[in-house]
């Protein structure tokens, strides 16, 4: 029996009728066509499916869309500004070569963005620890960690220069 949902996706109000079994990641990708969020393992280990739910990082493959009914979800597509300007975290990933194949990248970027609200220091050790729920098979993490450090700095001092 389908259930009615109302939620915010990247700031837009979305209404839908879905089967309760629908996972958030499938709703995002299939129902909304937002395929930036990736399914890497489907067992809540790799983090490629990471989105923000009410501002907090969550693995969308391990959440029912029904659970976020009434809530607000931000996906990788929701980071760039209206005029297309990339989010500071996205820019940092570009500058620091924080991706190779790009499969884990949306999850990494969303996780990085979420760290700002968690007060994670923009330091490699702290960032590595905070990234424990996101796996990358290509890069060896160095570029990712550098990118997240810079991204956090720019998010916290938007007017100023990166430290």
């Amino acid at each position, binding site marked *: 029996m389908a259930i009615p949902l109302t939620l915010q996706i990247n700031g837009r109000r979305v209404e839908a009728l879905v089967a309760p079994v629908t996972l958030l990641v499938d709703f995002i990708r299939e129902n909304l066509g937002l395929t930036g969020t990736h399914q890497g393992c489907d067992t809540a280990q790799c*983090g490629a499916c990471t989105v923000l739910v009410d501002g907090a990082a969550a693995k969308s493959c*391990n*959440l029912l869309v029904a659970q976020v009914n009434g809530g607000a979800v931000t996906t990788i597509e929701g980071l760039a500004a209206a005029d297309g300007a990339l989010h500071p975290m996205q820019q940092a990933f570009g500058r620091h070569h924080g991706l190779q194949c790009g499969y884990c990248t949306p999850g990494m970027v969303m996780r990085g963005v979420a760290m700002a609200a968690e007060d994670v220091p923009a330091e490699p050790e702290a960032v590595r620890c905070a990234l424990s729920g996101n796996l990358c098979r290509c890069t060896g993490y160095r570029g990712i960690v550098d990118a997240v450090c810079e991204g956090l700095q720019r998010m916290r001092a938007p007017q100023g220069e990166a430290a």
Partner: protein
Amino acid sequence: MNSFEYRRPTRVAEAVQWLRDDPEAKLLAGGQSLLAAMKLRFAAPTLLIDLQGLHELNELTVLREDGEALWIGAMCSHAKVAASPLVRERLPMLAALAHGIGDQQVRNRGTLGGSIANADPAACWPAGVLALNGTVCTDRREIPADDFFTGLFGTALEPDELVCGVRFPALVQAHYLKFEQPASRFALTGVAVARHASGVRVAVTGLGNGIWRWTEAEQALASQFIAGALLGLQVDPAQASGDIHASAEYRAHLAGVLTRRAVQHLASQHLFSIPR
């Protein structure tokens, strides 16, 4: 997943009634264990009762009239407990324990109630609740920690019983150390040592058969709270079960090591009056 019905109750009594009406129904807290099992078709409940609408289960407060005990609601996420100024100030061991569970994405959704009701033999929360002598409060009664955990995935909960929260009494000091399985970050072995006014409690998780108190160590430490008091004491490997990650003997050995280190940490804190 097999299909199911989904409902969000607005009252605890409503949730309990739905559980009672359908023996194949399951409570949904954070869903971090349950949904994973359902996706693999290891579980196929006919109805999921999502508890997130029961805001009274998400409270985290000090019970001033109860000797300054700390109340943590069943639906409090691990992230909320880890970040709570109240918990960090009064029971910092619990904040650290919660912060060490899984990863941040899991911590943002997973809950105290879900963790203890599931009672995974490698979970961290049962060690914290048991060592700190928490009282599990359900919709119908209060269950002391010693009676709550009953073995492998075992709790004293009735099939239609709902955990509302845990009450943690004030204590002298406590520490939790976990030797992680590197991928899952579950406890290969985890030890929580707590010093109460009335004595010492040592709770060991990860041995395989459920949360366990090392009473021999507790008695030795009650006489003298130093790591040396544990000399010659060993956890019997018969208490543990082995698997591909670690043998029973290794887990028993780890339990001894972690207990000693936890005691060393606490003993030095006490000595130098480092704020806990």
